[in-house]
């Protein structure tokens, strides 16, 4: 789900070859699960078909694809909307949130603001679950608790990440 958007984000930095995109994706987001070359080129193909990237002419050299891809205005708009909007608060968001924060820092976007917006969305969902607990029965409370504890874990991650943004920015921009 986030692979196309992550590739768009990497292209927002600078036009790149598929190989470079795969290398950067694996370095920052792969974490033991590298992106297969086939998926990189298939995704880039779909993005090009939908007008979100342009492929350019093939350059001479070895390998299956020597095109240099660049993000289009449509692609940049879609990426920006994804980066700016908070994610629907639900458990196990860390991977998506992590990708958003790293890309925002790479692109010198206001990562702290994104985290603030996400924190607000989380607290709003926690508020709804708290109300369900306060007005419902024990079963409702138990179900709401399950959601609350997971959202609380996300919230702690948001807070800790927020406190570490400067160090993280230094790391991702040093490359």
């Amino acid at each position, binding site marked *: 789900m986030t692979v196309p958007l992550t590739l768009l984000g990497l292209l927002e930095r600078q036009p790149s070859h598929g190989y470079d995109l795969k290398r950067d994706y694996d370095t920052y987001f792969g974490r033991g699960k590298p992106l297969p070359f086939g998926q990189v080129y298939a995704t880039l193909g779909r993005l090009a078909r939908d007008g979100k990237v342009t492929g350019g002419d093939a350059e001479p050299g070895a390998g299956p694809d020597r095109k240099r891809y660049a993000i289009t205005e449509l692609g940049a708009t879609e990426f920006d909307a994804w980066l700016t909007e908070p994610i629907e608060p639900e458990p196990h968001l860390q991977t998506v949130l992590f990708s958003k924060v790293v890309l925002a820092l790479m692109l010198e976007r206001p990562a702290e603001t994104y985290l603030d917006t996400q924190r607000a969305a989380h*607290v709003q969902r*926690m*508020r709804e679950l*708290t109300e369900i607990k306060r007005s419902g029965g024990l079963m409702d409370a138990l179900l709401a608790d399950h959601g609350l504890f997971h*959202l609380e874990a996300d919230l702690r991650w948001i807070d800790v990440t927020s406190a570490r943004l400067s160090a993280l920015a230094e790391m991702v921009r040093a490359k």
Partner: protein
Amino acid sequence: MTSQNASPAQQTRRWLIEARDVYRSFGQTPALAGASLSVGNGEIVAVMGPSGSGKSTLLHCLAGIFTPDRGEIWFDGQRLDTLSDTKRTELRRTAFGFVFQFGQLVPELTVADNIALPLLLNRVHRKVAYAKAAAWLPRLGLDDLGTRRTGELSGGQAQRVALARAMVAHPKVLLADEPTGSLDTLTGEMVMDLLVGLAREEGTTVVLVTHDGRVAAYADREVMVRDGKVINRAGIEVEVGR
């Protein structure tokens, strides 16, 4: 900077309690650096933020315990920070209730003594004060504990007594600083259920400092304090009147 074209007094009437562009330092260390927060009548607002962000200092400024180096504190249409110490203390006794992380009860006194204390300090007749204190015991599930010394209570019981003591004089504002910080999850939830339930019943405005998202979720809205400034939900610095 103000956000409307009304006079400061008119603007303040829209809000029960306000910090306007408040600065406060401790020695060379700035704790607040232009913090603004406006809380409406009957509203419950959570003030979140990491340790050292200035959230407790903001609460103490709103309470009139700390005087800002710069900026203004308004309460119910009057400027709080320029009042004399005597008038500010009087206002704190009559219009404000406080709950802190550790109940700050007098351990040698009984539960009833502790709850009646604010009324006795306000020169309410002893018999009336104790009758009012006794009326709060069942509301907080403390029915059989009136004669118990507070030093013998569990953390949850002590916080419920602290809540009764804060509410007994029917304050307009309840200021709570990490009220569940020393409690386990279930006990903390019970205290927050009571705090919010009582505030709604009594129409009390609540400013609640917490770093805990589960506690903040009890509030009508939350703000963040970061680097001595108040930030709203969208990560934007809060201006006066917002």
